[in-house]
């Protein structure tokens, strides 16, 4: 049983499943660093997934579809930013509104655009996207010939590699560029940042735009590679899981990547187990449960660490 589950296929699927979560997680990381809680990642991914798959169908080119998906992601986020920063709508509520559009609004658009009427309750674009439209995969030369490691690491969708590359790039952005310093300072203390001449509004727009870009990548991955076409609720909480991954990774790119991998593992595991004949309704919630447990574990560790620091500093004081 264990051998049936833990084979190279399984580890390959972990990376594949983690990729969209990782994109959204990076979006959450940068947003949160600037003090912007983007809970609209879920809805943004849905919108990007829809328009990405539609333009891929119209243009016949996945590259055009990807660009449109990214554009939609950024556009939706900037719109969110406009309401949250300029009109002072609570950012959480703005996110909920985006998620409403992501679930029902996208279905409306699909029905209107593809002229599928109410009769077919499950309108989707799955019939439009064929394997020819799919974002291509890449067999890495040399690595693909290594036993065990080759079949796990090679042959992924190019966006999967982009996702993991972006972890590094996000780290560079946050810790090695002036923009990153500004983003972090705005998140840490907007008043201080503003007092030294940083435009808090501009930085927040950049941060939420970046998270929209990431959601665009995630949405494109979902509808143009992972499940070939848009269908209702296809993102299935990945945007929310990303928020949890961000929290568990303490808001750092690498840590958040590791927690995204944990969720990828949980999801790959539940898919694998359900293919072995166990009721899928019993194993599908595993990633969501793992999310809750992960958050609790993280909070406990954090608390323990804080306590230790407290007692250490108290000891120091008494020693003096």
């Amino acid at each position, binding site marked *: 049983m264990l051998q049936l589950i833990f084979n190279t296929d399984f580890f390959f699927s972990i990376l594949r499943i983690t990729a969209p979560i990782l994109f959204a997680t990076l979006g959450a990381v940068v947003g949160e660093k600037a003090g912007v809680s983007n809970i609209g990642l879920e809805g943004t991914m849905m919108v990007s997934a829809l328009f990405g798959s539609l333009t891929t169908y119209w243009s016949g080119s996945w590259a055009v579809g990807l660009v449109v998906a990214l554009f939609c992601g950024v556009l939706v986020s900037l719109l969110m930013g406009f309401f949250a920063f300029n009109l*002072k709508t609570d950012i*959480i509520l*703005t996110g909920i509104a985006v998620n409403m559009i992501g679930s029902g*609004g996208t279905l409306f658009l699909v029905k209107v655009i593809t002229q599928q009427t*109410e009769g077919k309750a499950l309108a989707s674009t799955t019939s439009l996207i064929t394997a020819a439209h799919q974002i291509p995969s890449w067999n890495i030369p040399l690595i693909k010939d290594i036993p065990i490691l080759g079949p796990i690491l090679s042959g992924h969708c190019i966006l999967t590699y982009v996702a993991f590359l972006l972890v590094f790039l996000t780290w560079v952005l946050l810790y090695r560029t002036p923009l990153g310093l500004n983003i972090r300072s705005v998140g840490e203390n907007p008043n201080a940042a503003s007092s030294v001449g940083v435009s808090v509004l501009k930085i927040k727009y950049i941060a939420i735009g970046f998270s929209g870009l990431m959601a665009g990548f995630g949405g494109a991955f979902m509808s143009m590679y992972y499940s070939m076409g848009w269908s209702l609720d296809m993102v299935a909480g990945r945007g*929310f899981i990303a928020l949890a991954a961000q929290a568990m990774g303490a808001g750092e790119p690498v840590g958040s990547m590791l927690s995204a991998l944990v969720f990828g593992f949980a999801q790959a595991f539940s898919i694998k187990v359900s293919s072995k004949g166990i009721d899928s*309704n019993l194993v599908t*919630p595993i990633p969501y449960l793992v999310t809750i447990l992960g958050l609790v574990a993280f909070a*406990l560790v954090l608390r323990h660490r804080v306590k230790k620091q407290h007692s250490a500093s108290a000891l120091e004081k008494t020693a003096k």
Partner: protein
Amino acid sequence: MNEKKAMQAARRRSLTFTLVRGAAAIGIALLVAAVLIFVSADGDRLAHTGEALRQLLIGPLFRSNGSINVKNICDVLAAMIPTIFTGLATCVMFSANQFNLGAEGGIMLGAFVSALFAVYVPLPAGVLPVVAVLAAAAAVSVMMLIPAVLKAKLGVSEMVNSLMLNYVVMYLIKYLLNTHLADKTKGQIQSYPFQEQARIAPLIDNGSMLTWGFVIALIFVVLTSLFMYRTRWGYGIRMIGINQDFARYSGMNVAAIVILSQVLGGALAGIGGGVEMLGRYSAYSWNALPGYGWTGITVAILAGNNPAFVPLAAFFMAYLNKGCLLMSTYCGVPSQLIDILQAVIFVFFAAKQFLAKYRQRLVVKGAQEELAAQKAAAAEAAAETAEGSVK
């Protein structure tokens, strides 16, 4: 005397502003709707858009021949039942600044638990529905304890946890229903039929599903209002929502109130699920989250987190929803337009700076009037004293 007048004027100004702002938000949403319908229509676009908007706006009230459509109105009132409860639940939780989004899973769990009682527990008429609904309330309260306690004790985001719980609850209910509880004689997956004495009786017998549940919902509106504005616990909930640090420094047990608000929200959502299930259905068949939780959030925002306004907001949303359904039936506009409308109204309603310039003008105008009145009064008084001194 003068101060009282000024207070009244200020209150009137803020009411005017709220009304104008609400009307503007709804107007913008309808404009968006009109554009979307216009773009999606084929043939004579203008006529089509006009007809669709007519269905959306007055379709729920009148038949095409102009007579009042009682059945449709009853449908709208019946549709308010679950969203009143989720709206109340959200009001209580959001008032305490707890962004718990678990009303969605909560109402599903409540419906499921009450359905189990309705199918399997042999109790006499009158007792069974009450017990079933109370059990639903208890079950959802326990569910909400998870995000609530984790938030209060460990500071874990109640928002993410409640969202995750929604999925967990949904899949577990689906699992139980599919494997152990399904009535295998039926074509679709559903539970065995409820016992007859478990059902909540209809208020009007016209097939509209307007049950006594509506009255129960209104009673809970009153109870929740009283709780929030007339008890110390309600005061505590509102206080930690306004300023948690202040509440802590003034000696409130913040952790207990954080938990209380979410457990109470859970209980309300659970009751809503039970009342809706036992009123509308004769067997349990929900296999996906029903969406009432999200509508409940919109309702709470529209009501400004004040339970007293929840029925009004719920009526508005139910009316709009019915209009969208009619529009999709008669004009072929997909009914999911409601989600876009809802989102647009939602963000504008919650926008603090929306029409801020207008408010500014109102305030300035009011202040000027007040000053002018004071000046006039002073002049009058001066004239009077002058007159007095002449005498």
